[in-house]
């Protein structure tokens, strides 16, 4: 039971940590992508 809880906590931490770096990266990529679209207009 305790082992299962630890595994779940690790999983939540993993998801949160990846979200913490991927959300700003995604925002930056989106901003650059919008800028790049000017090339095709």
């Amino acid at each position, binding site marked *: 039971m305790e082992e299962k809880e630890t595994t779940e906590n690790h999983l939540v931490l993993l998801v949160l940590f990846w979200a913490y770096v991927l959300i700003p990266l995604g925002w*930056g990529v989106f901003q650059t992508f919008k800028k*790049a679209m000017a090339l095709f207009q």
Partner: protein
Amino acid sequence: MSGFFSKERTTAGHAYNRWLIPPAALAVHLCIGQAYAFSVFNEPLTRVIGVTQSAPDDWKLTTIGWIYSLAIVFLGLSAAFGGKWLEKVGPRRTMFTAACLFGGGFLISALGIKLHQIWLIYLGYGVLGGCGLGLGYVSPVSTLIKWFPDHRGMATGMAIMGFGGGAMIGAPLGVALMKHFHSETSVGVMEAFVVMGILYFISMVIGSVAIRTPAPDWKPHGWTPPVEAKKMVTKRHVHIDQALKTPQFYLLWLILCLNVTAGIGILGQASVMIQEMFKGSITPEAAAGFVGLLSLFNMGGRFVWSSASDYMGRQNTYFLFFALGTFLYSMLPTFSGEGNIVMFIAAAAVILSMYGGGFATIPAYLADIFGTKFVGGIHGRLLTAWSTAGVLGPVLVNYIREYQVNHGVAKADAYTTTLYIMASLLAVGFVCNLLMKEVHEQHYMKHDEVDDPLQG
């Protein structure tokens, strides 16, 4: 506190999830990648006193230009000299030091703006920030290689992709902050520096707290090291100082330098180049879009090519970079002459993906050749090739173009010679890669030397 940062406290237990390490590395690289976007501050820094337009006492653009140059020089120097320290104290202390230097560099620069003392900005962002860049760049790389022995290229690609992505966050963030803090008495740069310094410090500290090194006997679940040694992948280790005595180090130095020189040649001049080569067809807005597209390919190439190198082999990956790069570079003038914008853009995008790929694949190539024990330090020393290329690339493009324009060559044709020279550089890189062999027996550490981190 010093115990928390010690190398021993950084060692993870066997149940630690290795997928927590890439975001720790990304937390650092996404911050220091801001350096690529420093140019958004250049023009506003020339209006610190005048605010709406430059006053006579305001700094000139040439004075401002030294900030970025200093940062890149100190990036190379700190990576080269700090690499050995990294091997001694471990990644956590190095990443924390990088956070203090990079974040603190912003704050000292903000003070420099407040007091209008340019030397404080040179010291802050240029010297201290540059050292933070170098230490932050190399610190997670060897750790990732140790956590992902089965996917070395992919692991380092994830971190180094972050450096490319950092500019994509840093540029719009810097612009947004300057806009927010802009007033009748301030261009908003000082305030933006304070906010960014604090944000980057916190993010990098989070990365340093999360970083762990694997236990010496740890290996990925279900993975067994290949019994038969792969060609050009050693299981032994070369000491950081001994690596400098091998021809392989200098060949890899040239490989990185030539690949980066060729990439910077396009990246630094992309906007002007496409407007002059396709005069009348490309507006300044479209040219800015071209730069954005190249940045996306630069970042994507870091992950895609380095991951592919795990399957293709490091030497074959660089063969592809150099052969395809030579071909595409030499075709750019033809595409321009034919007015074929689509092919020109596609070729430039592939070239830039390989530029990024070259950065991201080199740590895994080093680990294959010199072993994983000192790869962080050796990688740091190899990064002097980046600093060299940072000077060589733009100089080659600018001076050759200027010489040709001064001698009556039309602006649209002035890049032709430069592009052929870049193609030749990549051909030389192909030969260097061809000469790569395994390290001679005499350079490897003996079994009893391996346990001591800086023995030898």
